[in-house]
């Protein structure tokens, strides 16, 4: 498959005092056309910051400090607003965790969905309403004509997220960025939305980057996954490998800390301690202070990337051995 998006050595920082605090360091990954790529990690690991940087929606004073983001040949990391505008919405769509705050409360749902069409001139004015209703049906909104005339507060949580997805899809983007799209939803509605995202991806041939803290969501939705810890990708793998043979001790620990049906009443193995403050990351591997496999060399320099058997790779000097009795599973 062709490479759609390539992120190379991306660094994102926020100025503080004299210097800059690195939120994201040396992040590189590639998403192919039509692929579903997951980014998992705990709060503050930089996963949302990374995907926001792709369409240059970094919040506050956060800035891209190094690296490149190539989308269909263009470098988004260094593009100016004029270059970005035609891509936002049309080439790359985005959905957010909380659809109520992502939607404009004083504008009808239909007008918000059609706005992208008007802005990008995707279809002639006479066809806008038809396209709007078509997209609303595509995302499974019942009775599109009625909902198009409704305001966001009149919809349920699941319907709001469907409307937000309709807004993101109306101009047929090649890449959809989804930042925790089901975290605010109930589990039965979450299942509906995940099914919808998977169906849309295969029907429209669109690539998806899904950011989530939930390994279950990744398992059910993505082809490949990156695990982020403290601003870096520490492991990347095809979805089957990450669950069957995780190599980075953080990935192993993450899998061991979720309750899974078969392990009921066995103690969970939490990760002791907390992730470091981005302003005070240790030298060397930032997971070292919490890592069960830590040795002296872990504190010297951040580990180089190692290619893993079974696909992907990891950044660790002392990874979990393949085929060893991993405590999860």
């Amino acid at each position, binding site marked *: 498959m062709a490479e759609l998006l390539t992120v190379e050595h991306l660094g994102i920082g926020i100025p503080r005092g004299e210097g800059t605090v690195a939120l994201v360091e040396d992040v590189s990954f590639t998403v192919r056309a039509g692929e579903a790529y997951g980014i998992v990690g705990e709060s503050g690991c930089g996963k949302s910051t990374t995907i926001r940087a792709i369409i240059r929606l970094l919040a506050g004073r956060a800035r891209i400090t190094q690296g490149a983001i190539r989308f269909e040949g263009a470098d988004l990391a260094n593009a100016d607003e004029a270059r970005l505008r035609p891509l936002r919405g049309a080439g790359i769509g985005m959905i957010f965790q909380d659809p109520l705050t992502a939607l404009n409360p004083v504008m009808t749902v239909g007008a918000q969905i059609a706005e992208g069409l008007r802005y990008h001139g995707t279809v002639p004015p006479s066809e806008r309403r038809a396209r709007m209703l078509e997209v609303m049906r595509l995302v499974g909104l019942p009775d599109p004509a009625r909902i198009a005339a409704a305001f966001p507060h009149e919809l349920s949580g*699941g319907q709001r997220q469907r409307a937000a997805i309709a807004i993101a899809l109306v101009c047929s983007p090649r890449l959809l960025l989804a930042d925790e799209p089901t975290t605010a939803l109930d589990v039965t509605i979450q299942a509906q939305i995940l*099914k919808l995202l998977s169906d849309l991806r295969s029907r429209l041939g669109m690539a998806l980057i899904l950011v989530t803290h939930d390994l279950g969501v990744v398992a059910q939705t993505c082809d490949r996954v990156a695990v982020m810890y403290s601003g870096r990708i520490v492991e990347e793998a095809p979805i089957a490998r990450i669950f069957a043979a995780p190599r980075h001790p953080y990935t192993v620990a*993450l899998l061991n800390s*979720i*309750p899974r049906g078969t392990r009921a009443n066995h103690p969970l193995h*939490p990760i002791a301690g907390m992730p470091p403050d981005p302003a005070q990351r240790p030298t060397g591997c930032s997971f070292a202070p919490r890592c069960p496999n830590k040795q002296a060399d872990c504190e010297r320099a951040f580990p180089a990337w190692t290619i893993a058997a079974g696909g992907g790779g990891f950044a660790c000097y002392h990874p979990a051995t393949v085929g060893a009795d991993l405590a999860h599973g």
Partner: protein
Amino acid sequence: MAEQPLLAVEALNKNFPLRRSLVAGLMGRPHRRVQAAKSVSFAIGRGESFGLVGESGCGKTTLGRLVLGLLPADDGAILFEGQDIAKTDPAGRRALRRQMQMVFQDPYSSLNPRIRIGSALAEPIRLHGIVPRAEVQAEVARLLERVGLPASAATRYPSELSGGQRQRVGIARALSVRPKLLVADEAVSGLDVSVRAQVLNLLSDLRRDLGLTLLFISHDLGVIEYLCETVGVMYLGTMVEYGPTAAVFARPAHPYTRALLASIPRADPSASAAHDTPLGGEPPSPVNPPSGCPFRTRCPAAQALCETPPPRVTLPGGRWAACHFATEFVQDVR
């Protein structure tokens, strides 16, 4: 049952009246009501860990508040050690309060930001006279150690602690008056997975070491399965299924329980068929719940009979389910 349960909830009802518009009031239209609990009955034995699970708006939080007496019930009874909490005098009620404590979802909003952790923990100890005054500080230190916090945490403000540490303080404060029953409402929902596991293990240890009884309210079935021996599944203000967690999760008897379990994204890519046919639709409004079985509007197995209220069908193994077809469902292994 030979032994008296620690907590018994009997045919509990709770409605919240909605505000009526002026016009509706003048025209004498009746108040509309949200039905948050409809004849809910269950019991929790001493030392048992009971999980209450359901989606938002199903009434699980209201039920937790009713149990603690934070909300008055419309009718029905809540018996704590056989004593009806609605019929106790103020002094008796205060004594009862000490026996039942709550851990809230967001420890940040339930802790006073201007009071140091040590003082926040000392307050209930003094108020209820748990230990002599001279020993209060030692008791605070003991509590902090018990929940896995350093003694130095006593001098900190809530804002100086991480989310997991704050939740430990919330648990320590609930434990400070040595309760018999702990009600935890979404106590781990705001936490990251690794920290959530720490708090779950802590709750599990506390229950074992202190003989605590736990009413654990959560939308997270994985957490309930891990922590609770018994589970009650709520839908639109009614309890639709009750029984030992392992049996209920292995072979659900109510179609809603089955749908809920099938909706969980399993952290196992080979189980990817799990959400192939997700439950359609959304829960109806609790203002206007369907007649008969509340789940019939979304139920894949609904039939004409479901328009009549379902009976509570008793099943082997101390289970029951409120479904006309519970006996068939529990035998249908899929």
